[in-house]
């Protein structure tokens, strides 16, 4: 057990956010809370990863992992298996539409006492919700963490900075609020079933809410969440040649990515851009086709576990980070690669 220093800041707290003040001091119980995101009626994989890691962290702190879920999902029952001793389940009108401010106040109300850390997956939703929770708790926030641990009861984490050109190791004075990068931590089952408890934390009236979901045409796998990415650059010569990229991606069950040049040229949507002003990704396998490897692109994908490059130019900088490379014309190589992989993988 240890005493956690006050979460109160020295700045005056506006009266209207009185719902979010934390206690002066409390004994750390080593508990970790994990917000789980529900999409299309299912708790997402990235949240199960965050929950599993939260459980590992709680174990090293001598406490328990708790899950917090808003709304219904058919795998809420699984949360115990992935490490949640207790699932705080908020349902009804309050949970019907996602609201950054209302959900944050709710999570802060549930975690203002007795929690060493509050975590969630670093998704589009998580990355706006968690910092708001941190502000409610008057504590610090770390985005897109790639490693988290506790030593002597003190939590520390590692996160990418400068688009992953460096990694910062940091500590927080107060509750450790962080989002965990998808596809980095293992989702693992711990066996014990948890208790699902109905919860009605103080949320207040939502100031902003999601009113509609607009799915992309042929809702594709997002690069930030994919295990495998097939990415194309200017070497593809034009948008009409992307069926080659898509064909290879389909065989591998991969997401399609793109360099900044082809996004700026209007060939591919910005959501596919990998790089410093696009998305930073760390899949198991990244295949870069017709991409030269500008420093900003490398920043976005050089943490990939395995990198393959296919490029006509043997001097292309991409070959410096690639584990395996083929020097050749993408239009000749990729169809053969797709065929061979199809035969192998079925």
């Amino acid at each position, binding site marked *: 057990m240890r005493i956690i220093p006050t979460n109160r*800041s020295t*700045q005056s707290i506006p009266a209207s956010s009185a719902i979010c003040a934390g206690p002066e001091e409390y004994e750390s119980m080593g508990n970790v809370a994990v917000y789980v995101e529900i999409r299309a009626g299912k708790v997402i994989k990235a949240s199960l990863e965050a929950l599993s890691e939260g459980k590992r962290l709680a174990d090293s702190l001598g406490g328990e992992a708790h899950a917090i879920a808003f709304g219904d999902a058919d795998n809420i029952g699984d949360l115990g298996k992935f490490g949640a001793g207790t699932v705080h389940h908020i349902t009804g009108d309050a949970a019907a539409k996602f609201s*950054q*401010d209302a959900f944050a106040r709710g999570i802060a109300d549930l975690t203002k006492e007795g929690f060493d850390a509050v975590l969630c997956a670093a998704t*589009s*939703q998580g*990355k*706006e919700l968690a*910092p*708001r929770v941190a*502000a409610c708790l008057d504590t610090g*926030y770390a*985005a*897109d963490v790639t490693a988290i641990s506790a030593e002597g009861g003190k939590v*520390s984490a590692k996160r*990418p*900075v*400068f*688009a992953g*050109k*460096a*990694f*910062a*190791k*940091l500590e*927080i*004075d107060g509750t450790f609020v962080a989002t965990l990068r998808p596809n980095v931590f293992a989702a693992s089952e711990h066996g014990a079933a948890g208790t699902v408890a109905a919860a009605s934390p103080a949320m207040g009236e939502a*100031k*902003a*809410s*999601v009113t*509609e979901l*607009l*799915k992309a045409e042929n809702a594709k*796998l*997002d690069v930030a969440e994919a295990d495998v990415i097939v990415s194309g650059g200017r070497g593809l010569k034009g948008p009409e040649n992307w069926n080659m990229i898509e064909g290879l991606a389909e065989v591998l069950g991969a997401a399609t990515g793109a360099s900044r040049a082809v996004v700026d040229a209007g060939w591919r949507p*910005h*959501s596919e851009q990998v790089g*410093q*002003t696009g998305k930073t990704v760390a899949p198991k*396998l990244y295949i870069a086709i017709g991409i030269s490897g500008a*420093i*900003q692109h490398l*920043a976005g994908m*050089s943490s990939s576990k*395995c990198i*393959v490059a296919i490029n006509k130019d*043997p001097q292309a900088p991409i*070959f410096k980070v690639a*584990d*395996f*490379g*083929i*020097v*050749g014309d993408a239009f*000749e*190589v990729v169809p*053969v690669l797709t065929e*061979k992989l199809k035969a*192998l993988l079925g």
Partner: protein
Amino acid sequence: MKIVVLVKRVPDTETKVKVAGDGKTLDPTGVNYVLNPYDEFAIEEALQMKEKAGSGEVIILTLGSKDATKEMRTALAMGADSGVLLLADASFADTASVAGALAAKIKELAPDVVLMGKQAVDDDNTAMGPYLAQKLDWPCVTIAVKLEIADGKVTAEREIEGGREKIETSLPAVITCQKGLNTPRYASMKGIMMAKKKPIEEVSVELAAPKTRVIAMEMPPARAEGKIVGEGPDAVDALVKALKDEAKVI
């Protein structure tokens, strides 16, 4: 309408990052500093809002050293009206301590909307929008790729995995801007000249102690040297074998 745009001075994306002697910060040698690329979308959006309304004021708000006036002048050259520079030593500041100082100034300025880029390309914490909004007790929309404001009502679209979601809220609000929201204009020569005369108010502020402390900064683990497995389509077999047997990724 009064619009405040938060702008940050950051190392440009060409920077080859090196860790300074203290083991925790960026070695500034040879680093070129620029206006945070995502903030350009915020400045452009503010200018378009003002133009559509026919009147209004766009104020650039920055926290940092005097060097940041260079980036603020770029924003003024694009067409913003004035600037406020909160002078502070932000070398070890975090989202929490900076948000505290910004919130205090924003309350004084009492704008209708606060815009900023969705993240700063140095810390990539993507947190200032929601954190600041909570301190102001305002709604916040992040990663906006479409924005409509009419009669105090806000309808926005933000990027999510596999598509977009529509958000409704009302002013005053904090909005963080994503690439695709608009196309930032270049500053004209006339704009650059005029920017020199636009006022930048400088205020010294003291930041509260940061809640988040960097204890070390490290380079990513060096990648093992890779190999070119061959040339042209004949090399595909070797590649497939390597992926299957060596890397074991398929």
